[in-house]
């Protein structure tokens, strides 16, 4: 079970009076095993939403809860994949993946089995002994995803996980994530500014306004994806060519366009 709930959440940075209001009255419910993407103009506070679920930042008002429990601190039930990977450079791939399991005090044999499974899942078997700096960006992000998945978290929080990757690697990783989501469905909160990525990956897409960020609308992709049978296509570009995909993408683009400043910034 892993549901996420934002209930009348505000976030103010800086002093309580006179601070910068980053988020204004966020209300959103993410059901168990649902994949929700938040898109929005940069600086709208979408990453802050994720950081509050992770327990890195408290809301200034309102409640963020996971499975009905108010979030107070970070924990392995809410695994985070960061944009800049955040791997420990002094630990090997295996050691990076294993740390969370050691923190759970699992016996050695059990850990080894789980790590081996995570390595296989992300095609990292031949790199288990490598250090992060010896790997490409795409490989590093695979490690970060493996590190999150191996914890068997209730929810997976992904903060622009492919934002630091080049275009080709990005596509591969997106396809990989869809594959993962089918094999091993999770509740996912996915932050991105790439509209295609959101439409391709998510069950629902929440669109945010400019600062102070509010949730403007939430689009259900699931019904269209099922009706148009996107899943019969293996490759992302084939899905992106579909009229239904293009239509949704344009709809979100227009909605975001309205949020751009007078100078189009």
């Amino acid at each position, binding site marked *: 079970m892993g549901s996420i709930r934002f209930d009348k959440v505000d976030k103010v940075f800086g002093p309580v009076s006179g601070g910068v209001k980053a988020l204004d009255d966020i209300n959103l419910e993410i059901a168990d095993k649902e994949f929700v993407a938040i898109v929005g103009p940069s600086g709208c506070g979408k990453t802050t939403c994720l950081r509050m679920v992770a327990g890195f930042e408290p809301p200034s008002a309102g409640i963020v809860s996971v499975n009905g429990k108010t979030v107070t601190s970070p924990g392995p039930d809410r695994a985070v994949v960061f944009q800049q990977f955040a791997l*420990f450079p002094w630990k090997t791939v295996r050691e990076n993946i294993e740390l969370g399991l050691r923190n759970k005090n699992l016996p050695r044999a059990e850990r080894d089995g789980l790590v081996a499974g995570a390595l296989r899942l992300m095609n990292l078997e031949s790199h288990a002994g490598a250090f992060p700096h010896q790997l490409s960006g795409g490989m590093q992000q695979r490690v970060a995803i493996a590190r999150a998945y191996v914890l068997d978290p209730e929810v997976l929080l992904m903060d622009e996980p492919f934002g630091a990757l080049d275009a080709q690697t990005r596509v591969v990783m997106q396809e990989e994530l869809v594959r993962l989501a089918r094999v091993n469905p999770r509740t996912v909160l996915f932050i991105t500014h790439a509209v295609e990525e959101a439409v391709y990956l998510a069950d629902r897409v929440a669109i945010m306004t400019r600062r102070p960020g509010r949730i403007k609308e939430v689009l259900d992709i699931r019904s269209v994806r099922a009706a148009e049978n996107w899943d019969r296509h293996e490759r992302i570009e084939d899905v992106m060519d579909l009229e239904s995909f293009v239509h949704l993408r344009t709809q979100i683009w227009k909605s975001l366009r309205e949020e751009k400043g007078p100078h189009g910034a």
Partner: protein
Amino acid sequence: MQATPLRLREKCAWGALGLLGFIGLWTALSAFGIVPRQFLPSPLDVLARFVHLLTTPFAGATLPQHLASSFQRYAYGVLLAAFIGVPLGLLMGWFRWLDDVVTPLFDGLRFIAPIAWVPFAALWFGVGIGGPILIIFAGAFPPCLINAYRGARFVEPRLIEAARMLGTGHLRMILEILLPAATPSIVSGLRVAAGLGWQSLVGAELIVAAAGVGFMMVQAQANVATPTVMAGMVAIGLVGMAIDVMLRQGEAWLRRRRGLPA
């Protein structure tokens, strides 16, 4: 990177020029009697005395023996400073309350020069090994603590967040995240500590010791044996340089292992 060998050779050439110039000036000053030879022996005198002292005892021991007793105190003092300073610095970097408790005290104490501990060192330990160790400790402790503290305090926040999200407890956080993240900073601190410790040592030995290079130099000064004083200075410089070179090598090795530019 092609220019590197030439650059290096050029650098060595300039360095040699500086050294030769210095020795030339020194030779001229003593050879032409500008400074009386009794007070400024020539480089050759010093070299001859240096070699002589390698085998012939002065003030109770040969130069290598004096160096050995100096080095022993030095090692104790610096190791003690590292074994207390580094863990304390890491703990202060993680536990804010400890930082609040220790920092004001430490900020006051660290401006007291190591030499200022000499009266206490003499009172408490006489000419025993404790005195110089205390003084070396006073010199080497601040950089150990400060660098471990800074290294721990300024770990990339994302790494701390990642570790917390993985459920990492305090002890493991300090040992497996803060310590390795702070290692480059700690090693730089140890290098500074090693240098300051070596300087403090010789200062201490001038006053509170019955053996060691500093002691040898004071005894020589009392006998107006200036070549011996200078041979001692040369020995101090050489050992100090050797310590620094070794620690630099260690630092570079560590950085290479991490995939960082050396």
